[in-house]
Structure formats: C-alpha cells, structure tokens
C-alpha cells in the first residue's frame, strides 16, 4: 500500500500550470476591468515578446536578470532560507562590477576585465548576503527581516557612493562616467553576426550565456555534490542535519554567499552588458521578481529558466502592450507577477491538497 500515490506529473506540471492559469485569468479580469480586451492584450503581449528577433532578444535580456535572481532565491530556499535580499545583493553586486570596470577599462582588455567583473559581482553580492547569513547562523536573527533591512541599507549606500564619489563632475544624472568599450560585454547580435547569424539589435549580451552556465552549475551543485546533499538535508530537516554531523551554520552561511553571489550577477547584465555605467536603481525589482521565478520554477534550474523566460516575456510584451495600448501601463506585469506569487506560492495548498487528495482517493479505491 505504500507506493507513491500522486503521479509526478501532477506535481511538476499540472499544479504549477493550474496556478499560473489562475494568475493569468485574474490578470485578464483586471484588464477587462480597465475596459480593454484581454485577448487583444495577450496578442500584443505575445507578439511583442516572441513575434520578432528584437522582441525575443529583449525577452531573453530580461530573463537573464531573472535567472540570476531566481537561482539566488532557490539556492537559499533549498537550505530552508528565505532570501528576500536579492534586490540589495544584486545592487551591491553591480557596484562590484562597476568598480572593476571603472578602474580597469582604460588599461585592460575585455578578456581580463570580464572574469574580474564576474568575480567582483559574486564577491560583492556574497559579501552583502554574508552579514544576514552570519546573523542567522550564529545569532539566530531571522533572515527574512535582516535581508529586508539590508535592501534598504544597500539602497542608501549606493546613493551615497554614487552621488558623492562615483558621479562624474558636472553630470546631471547620478551615474558614473560611461566605461570604455573594453569594459562592455559584447552583445549577442554582435557576436553572432560574424558567423553569419543575424539577430535583431537588442540588449541581449554575453551575460545570458553566463546565466545558463550558472543554471548548470547550480543544478550540479545542489543535486550532485556533497555540499548540495548537506544543503538539502538542512533545508528539509535541520534536526536530521545536526544528527548527520552537518555543520549547519557553515552550510547556512555558504548557501547565502552563493545566493548573494548569484544575485550579484544581475550587475553583469545591467552594468557591464547594457548601461555601461554605474547608475541608481538598475535592479528595478528583479530581486523580488526572482521570488516569483523560483516559486514558479519549483526551485529547479530548468524550471527557473522557463519561468524566467515567461517573466522576461511579460516584461518585454508588457512594454510592447503599453506602447500599443497606452491605457494599459507596464505595471500590469507587476500585477501578474504578484498574482503568480500569490497563487503558486501562498495559495499552493489550495489546489495541491485537493488534487493530491483526489489522486490518493483514486489510488486507495
């Protein structure tokens, strides 16, 4: 009688899809409520996101950020930690990237700067996650609250640094000088055109490839290494972790360091890939969106890639939609994002219990 009673596809496909459908359905109602046609809106959205080269490029560019933050949330989550600090870690990660670029762009070529920038992003992002992690592991301060606080602290710190130290004299906008081209991550359309592949101009850059590599890295790390085994043990049963002789404080801290480092890579895409200078608020909520991505992607790299592309499409399609129907603001995407978090996160039991109950009853009968 003790067989697995609920088929796997129910948990990894049926329930997530149902949750997303519900989120979209409610979003449709919102669009209807503001007097627009949801079907037409969906049409613009899908066309804008996937209908042409450039649109796809933008979709993937947004997805790049979301893959990083989604991975960040999920690595911490696997260890039972809720990292809401992705936003701040990404911000500070970007600072690391910016500082490296600003100090080396006159003297070094890209192939020297890029690896250093990767390290800079990871180290700075990780450093920002370290204090909440340390406090959680050694002093029992709740990581959710401390990471929220650290988002605010990061934001103030960045304003201070950029406005007082990094801003170019005489410049209006609070951002640093533009980097030399030796510190620009190449755009994919530039990389691909010499080998005969022409894709439309878009901000999609090398950071996207790095994001995919990070997925592979995270997948191997969590499911195929000892450390991942320890992390998952800690995340599902902390008492068993202590029983197994796992140094829970150390695993906690490392999980957050990796999480923060991953979030920091948003800086690669934004600072080095697209903006080419250090500016304020480039994280634009990607840290929070990462929570939705991780939840929807079931904390698995494949799922995260899919969810990130879905959200990337919403961002890009949403911009297109707002462009075509000015009464719909791009904020509708934020609403959809929130609804996804609500239905696939907070209300996960709503369908899950019923559907699983249905399959269990069927199995028992």
């Amino acid at each position, binding site marked *: 009688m003790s067989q697995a009673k609920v088929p796997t596809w129910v948990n990894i496909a049926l329930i997530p899809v149902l949750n997303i459908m519900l989120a979209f359905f409610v979003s449709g109602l919102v669009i209807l409520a503001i007097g627009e046609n949801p079907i037409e809106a969906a049409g613009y959205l899908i066309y804008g996101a996937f209908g042409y080269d450039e649109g796809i490029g933008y979709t993937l560019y947004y997805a790049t950020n979301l893959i990083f933050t989604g991975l960040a949330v999920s690595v911490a989550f696997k260890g039972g930690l809720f990292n809401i600090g992705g936003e701040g870690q990404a911000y500070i990660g970007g600072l690391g990237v910016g500082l490296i670029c600003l100090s080396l762009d006159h003297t070094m070529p890209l192939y020297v700067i890029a690896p250093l920038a990767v390290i800079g992003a990871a180290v700075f992002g990780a450093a920002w996650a370290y204090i909440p992690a340390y406090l959680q592991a050694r002093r029992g301060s709740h990581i959710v609250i401390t990471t929220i606080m650290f988002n605010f602290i990061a934001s103030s710190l960045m304003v201070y640094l950029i406005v007082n130290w990094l801003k170019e004299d005489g410049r209006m906008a609070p951002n640093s000088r533009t980097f030399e081209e030796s510190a620009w991550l190449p755009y994919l359309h530039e990389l691909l055109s010499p080998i005969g592949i022409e894709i439309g101009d878009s901000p999609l850059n090398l950071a996207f490839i790095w994001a995919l590599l990070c997925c592979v890295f995270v997948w191997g790390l969590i499911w195929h290494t000892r450390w991942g085994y320890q992390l998952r043990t800690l995340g599902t049963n902390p008492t068993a972790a202590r029983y197994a002789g796992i140094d829970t404080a150390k695993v906690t801290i490392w999980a957050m360091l990796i999480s923060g480092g991953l979030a920091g890579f948003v800086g690669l895409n934004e600072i080095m890939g697209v903006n080419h200078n250090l500016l304020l608020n480039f994280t634009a909520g990607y840290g929070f969106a990462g929570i939705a991505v991780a939840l929807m992607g079931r904390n698995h790299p494949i799922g995260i890639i899919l969810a990130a592309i879905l959200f990337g499409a919403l961002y890009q399609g949403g911009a297109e939609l707002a*462009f075509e129907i000015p009464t719909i603001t791009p904020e509708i995407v934020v609403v959809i994002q929130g609804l996804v978090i609500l239905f696939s996160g907070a209300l996960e039991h709503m369908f899950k219990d019923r559907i699983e109950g249905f399959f269990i009853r069927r199995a028992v009968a």
Partner: protein
Amino acid sequence: ATEPAVVYDQAGKFDKSFNEGVYNGVKEYTAETGIQVREFEPKNEAQVEQGLRRLAKRGYSPIVTVGFNMTSAVEKVAKDFPEINFTIIDGVIDLPNVQSVVFKEYEGSFLVGALAAMASKTNTVSFVGGMDIPLIRKFACGYEQGVKYQSSNATVLQNMTGSTGAAFNDPTKGSELAKSQFSKGSDVVFAAAGGTGIGVYQAAKDEGKLAIGVDSNQNHVQPGTMLTSMVKRVDQAAYKTYKDAAAGTWKPGLVVLGLSDGGVDWALDDNNASLITADMKAKMKDIRAKIISGEIKVHDYMSDNTCNY
C-alpha cells in the same frame, strides 16, 4: 507628412511640471492640426532606448525627447538613424540630426526671485529644489540673485530634496521641507522640484504662505497661494519642433531660449491676479526689460558651477 512622436522621461507626462509642459505642447499641436503625436512613457532605462529605436524604426520623425536623462540613449539611436530628426529638451547632443533645446532658467528664476522679495513680509524667502544637480542649482542661483536685487538684505533659505531622481517625486518630503522653512520665517517659497512641488504648494496653502510654481504655469494648482510660476516654455519647444518639421524649417543644432524669445517668463493670470499689485507689476516689467537689454546681468550657475555673482 511628418509622423511626430514624443518620449517622456520616467516621471511620466503627468508630473504637473516639466513633462506635463511638453505634454501641453503636444496637445496644442494636436488640437491645432489634428495630427496625433505618438507618445511613449518608458518605465526603466532599457525601455528608453528600446522605445526610441522602435519609434525610429517605424519612421516617426521628429521625435521630441524630454530631459537630460535621455541624452545618452538619444545619442546612440540618433547615430543609428541619421534620417530621423530628434529634438532633445534640456540636453545637448552634437549630431546633424539632433536639435538641442536649452533654457536660460536663471533669467526666469531671477524674475520670480524679485517678485518673491516684493511679496515677502518677513524679508525671508525660500527655495526647495528637487534633485541636487547643477540644473537645479541654476534655478536656485537665479532666484537668489533676483531676491537680492530687490532686497539686498533679504534671507534666502535653500533646501534640496535629495540626491536621486526620487527627489523629483516626493511631495511628502517637499511639504516637510517647506514647513521647516516657514518655521524659520520664510513666507514665499519657490519650488523647482517636479512632483515634489505639489507637496510644497500644499504646505504653503495649509500654512497661509505664498508659493511659486515652476516649468508649466502652475498658478491653477493652488489659486490664491501661487504667487506666480516661473514658466519654462518646454511646451513651445515641442510645439515648435513639430510645426517647423511640418513646414520643413526644422534645423539641427543648439537652441537657447531665454526671456527675450519667450522661452522663460513669469506667469500672470486670473489665478494670481489678486496677489499682484499694480506696483509689483510695474517693477517686474522694468526688471524684465533690464534683463533683456542686458542692463541686469544674471549669472548662470552652470557657466562655472558656482553661484558667485
């Protein structure tokens, strides 16, 4: 036929101030010619360039872009689309297909400064700036000169709301700043702070003080409280771009608009008529003429990044 377009900055076209000024110009043009202007309001940095490209690709021209924040994006896109005409307001780009429109805000600010000094009973007036950038210091400096010209022993209190873009959209802080200035004796406040100004004017109204609007004519925002507005005719900049383009007379290059060509001015209308005495009106007329004639030299903060006049 031209297909005109406009890209606002991230504050959006209803910021009651700078963007809204441009929007008014757009409305005027549409009302007059019946030609719809394609509008775009980007929500983040990436969308600025994306929106510009999309407009350029679809052949919209001229494209009016609003604010110094767009300088680098416009520069990139204008290079890639040499056949499309761009006008950038408040920014300077040296390209053959870009017109750069900048204003002598210091002249207008001087005028309203003088008026503030005339209206003040406490001989203390104040200034609330938005984001602390040279452009806003330019307003402050002109204002201060105007006040001192009228009343050399007057006190001018100055505060900036913040050092980020958010400082242009923080009415709560604006109102707190204004209240603190009032408590130090100010009875006329000039806000060059975008959306933050709304809070400043509200505070002035609540405490029975006078306020001076900026960019658009904001006299209607709090009638009876608004002493005047330092109008910066961004609406005209936009309107003229479209008109000229339609007539084929649009030209690239730098356009500097000041008092003499009506680019900046002080606003007098029904909403503030009762606050302006005939005497004040006369004095203003006189000062205005003197600035235009060059008899009064107003120092431009941005010429040397100081306010030594």
